């Protein structure tokens, strides 16, 4: 398999090992929140495949002078989320580095028959996303000192949210096509699903959930480098769509939501359940049978 969110190793007919690793430099100022975000982000690949995380190993690169309380707070934040995920931290490794970095390698299990992949989307499926977009823009604005406190808080809360309940809700309704929205942005990850499943998609601008402040900050030039790279990577047809909303759809996300393709008749019930844990979950478009990989953005559902 290629283009999946995590590595899968078949142990027996009904059991596969799922492994993933992710780490990065601090994205927010509060060390505990950073730890929580890094862990939620690392666990996300496991959830995107419909797997259950079992164990996690810390990966730490830290400058000596911050190795006391700051590192402790980061690790505690990480433990919090791993614990919430029902998994355990069983070890890790630390090296000295000028720029702090933290993340985890996570191992989980899945029944291959129920696994969610990027290649199972079909025409007519509703596209569901479980978190609002804009974490890359807001992290950039935070670095520039241009993000208001409430804006940073909302983005932080969103990034700390585990994709566990979203994954379980999808699995319970037999969803088979899913990925998580991270570095390649909504457009990049959607494009992966469409190409792997040989389908196309239509998105509705008005339905895209956006973090508060993201559009305003994009208009002020707070786009991260990755957003431009993602735009180069995926061409879409989006006449008349607000530039800044489109920017957010290309914005690289840290610990973004799950993006799933759901059979039409199950969407309303699913959305109602999702919103209990993911308040910004939304149906943002549908899978269509056009040219493989093509994406069209319309102002709203016709």
């Amino acid at each position, binding site marked *: 398999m290629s283009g999946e969110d995590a590595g899968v190793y078949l142990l027996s007919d009904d059991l596969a090992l799922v492994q993933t690793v992710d780490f990065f430099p601090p994205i927010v100022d509060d060390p505990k929140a950073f730890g929580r975000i890094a862990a939620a982000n690392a666990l996300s690949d496991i959830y995107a495949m419909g797997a259950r995380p079992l164990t996690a190993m810390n990966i730490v690169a830290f400058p000596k002078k911050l190795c006391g309380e700051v590192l402790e707070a980061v690790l505690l934040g990480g433990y919090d989320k791993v614990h919430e995920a029902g998994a355990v931290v069983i070890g890790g490794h630390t090296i000295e580095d000028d720029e702090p970095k933290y993340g985890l390698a996570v191992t989980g299990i899945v029944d291959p028959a129920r696994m969610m992949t990027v290649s199972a989307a079909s025409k007519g499926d509703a596209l569901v996303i479980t978190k609002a977009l804009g974490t890359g823009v807001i992290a950039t604005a935070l670095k520039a000192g241009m993000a*208001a*406190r409430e804006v940073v808080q909302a983005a932080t809360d969103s990034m700390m949210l585990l994709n566990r309940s979203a994954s379980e809700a999808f699995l319970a309704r037999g969803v088979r096509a899913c990925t998580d929205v991270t570095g390649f942005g909504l457009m990049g990850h959607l494009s992966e699903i469409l190409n792997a499943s040989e389908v196309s998609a239509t998105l509705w601008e008005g339905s895209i959930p956006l973090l508060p402040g993201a559009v305003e900050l994009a208009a002020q030039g707070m786009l991260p480098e990755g957003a431009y790279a993602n735009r180069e990577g995926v061409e879409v047809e989006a006449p008349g769509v607000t530039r800044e909303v489109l920017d957010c759809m290309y914005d690289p996300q840290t610990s973004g939501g799950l993006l799933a393709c759901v059979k039409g008749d199950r969407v309303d019930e699913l959305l109602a359940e999702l919103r209990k844990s993911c308040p910004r979950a939304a149906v943002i478009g549908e899978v269509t049978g056009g040219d493989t990989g093509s994406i069209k953005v319309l102002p709203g559902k016709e």
Partner: protein
Amino acid sequence: MDVVDARGVACPIPVTMTRNALEKSQSAVVVLVDNNTACENVSRFANSQGCEVEISQREGGFELKLTPGEKPVEKKADEKPTADVAFLVTSDELGQGERELGLRLMRMFLYTAAESGGKGTAVFMNTGVRLAAEDEEAAASISRLAGQGWKVLVCGTCLDYYGLKDSLKAGTVSNMYEIQSALVGAGSVVSL
């Protein structure tokens, strides 16, 4: 003409350099960048500030000429303080002398301000943040001001420094960018 050389630095630094230059300069500013990301981000920022932007390609990058529009360059209309007057409170004492008197005068000043109505912005910095966090009497007056629609900005760095972040009783935690815009945008600033 001011020239900002933002070559060799990664986003968002070119934008913050541009912002600082525009805030200081009365006339056009030239910004040099060496990649597309910085070029588009700086151009967007300048547009959002009401500047006209001329982009020309140069060896190894771009030159952006930013000409401020009619309006003075600052934050978006909806982020501007609605009020004319801003109180800048940088100490918990009013004036220099006996501490007890200074503190009492400051409490009286805030009480009187809350009694007089009107609208404005009150900014609390350095030991001034104690008034919004530790001093019950002053915090009560500050709360009343906020209740009347005053914008009350309390410096987050200062709260952190004095370990008061969790004890803030009145006002909103703010940053230097917001504080600076509020002071620049005010009709008159009263320093206390």
